[in-house]
């Protein structure tokens, strides 16, 4: 288990923080969103449910667009477009 952050296509990135508990997922997400360009899409994969609430609040506060959520089996794949 280790955090991975990869560019998967033009303007598309994937951050996988499965296996990590708070505060890793939300802090890595914050760093990833700081790194990518405005309009880029971040696919975030995590399995710590409580981080989701904080990440949603981060997106709301920063104006980033959380436009897709695939949840189930204890894992979450969310897509965020940076404002």
């Amino acid at each position, binding site marked *: *288990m*280790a*955090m*991975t*952050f*990869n*560019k998967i296509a033009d303007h598309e990135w994937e951050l996988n923080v499965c*296996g*990590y*508990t*708070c*505060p*890793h997922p*939300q*802090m*890595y997400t*914050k*760093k*990833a969103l700081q*790194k990518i360009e405005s309009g880029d899409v971040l696919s975030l994969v995590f*399995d*710590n*449910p*409580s981080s*989701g*609430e*904080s990440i*949603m*609040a*981060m*997106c*709301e*506060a*920063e*104006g*980033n*667009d*959380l*436009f*897709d*959520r*695939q*949840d*189930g*089996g*204890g*894992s979450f794949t969310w897509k965020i477009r940076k404002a």
Partner: protein
Amino acid sequence: MSSVATASAASGSHWLLRKSSLQAMSVFLLVVAGSLLALAEDTRFVYMLVYVWFGLAYGMLLQYGRFCMASAVRDLFAVKVPRMAVGMMIAVALYALVAAVVTLAGFSTFHPNAMGWHIVIGAAIFGFGIVFTGGCASGSLYKAGEGNMNSMLVILAISFSQAIVVSASGWWDSLVPQSWIESAKAKEMPEELSVTEGWFDIFTAGHIWDLKGATTADMFDMAGTTAGVVWMNTMLTAILPVAIILVVLYVFYYRKGHLRRTGKAAPSLGDELAGMWAMFTSSKNTAIAGIGLGILAGLHMYVTGVLREHYDIFNFGELLVAMGYTNGLSIQDTVFDPGYWYITTQEAQWGGWIMQQLGINSMDSIFFGLDNGLPNPLLNAPGFMSIGIILGASVMALARREFKWKMPSWETAFFAIVGGTLMGIGARLAMGCNIGAFFATVTNGDPSGWVFLFGMVIGAYVGVKAFTWYMDWSDSRKTSECGL
């Protein structure tokens, strides 16, 4: 934010027939069966079952609202999210209002904590630890219920670190001030407690017992009066600070984003109030959990108070003796039995009980030998509340298809053990954790809880700085071009 496309990996069957829903029901039925077995053994076990079922309800709500007080302070500094801090304040306000009714009805089980610098120091150590463990004391329990084995390690670390802190003796005993030793000697405690051996005993008998603990109503000579309970304990000690903190959270963490989203360049008072409301409801799950936990915590105190009156007891130890269970009681025939939501002391008892079974005597300490006892975990009422929290969280996580076994890595295990140990040490110095020394105190008119929160905030702030430094250092060692 635009509308969110959501999907769950659900099978086509009815939700009640899904494997995870059936597992949730199985866990629930396990608690029902265990409760019936206990009642069949002796109906007086209903006293212990109150802890079990309130624990179950706490666990369900904690998981539903992702309600973790570590997040309340940590996420403010780490990612500038006030969600959980708001939820915590809602819970404090509700608990305070229900506690006022319970106190006026004469069923309060609350005792104020001794006020002193030990609270700030202990809370700061505790606050530093929670950043690394990923959860507070109750947060770790509910996350363990989600299948997170890291959180189990945290619970183990909290249990054993506390048990060792309160009972260990050694060269460090000589570091305590002589005045504490003299004061401890003057208490003339029973010989078997050896109060001048073991720094925590000396600290307790020679320092803590010399400090005062009082509610705000006590301080203004209004104890036992309706005005004292309502205005001093509830409004002045809980509701007013909550209102101030909520305004501070809105101004510094929510207002800017809210005004941008609503396009208000020159907001009126109505716009600001609407913004406050939006902050309260931005995470409905957290707000609902806050309301539910606040009300339940007050009701818990009421139900225990009613049962104590019914059985004419002051402590569960008396009931255990009446039922024929005398092993593990303190020399006063008492056991730990707060009568309200509490976490760390029963975990210390788990660690102490295991140490006792391994031949390490812990009953010569004030903490176990005089106050809390070391009952068999099967007879530890607050211990069952903690187990109830784990099981309640499991029920909710399974029902919501969020349960997943998660094994720790070396890195996360290290954080869990070190952070959990710091939480245990901090909790004992401060005489409780974020629940017992904060949540249960400020809501019952004891201002020492705000001192605990102050210390916890300082510790969490330093912890976030240290954690951020660690993440940056860790990333700098990676060679990937896609490092963070």
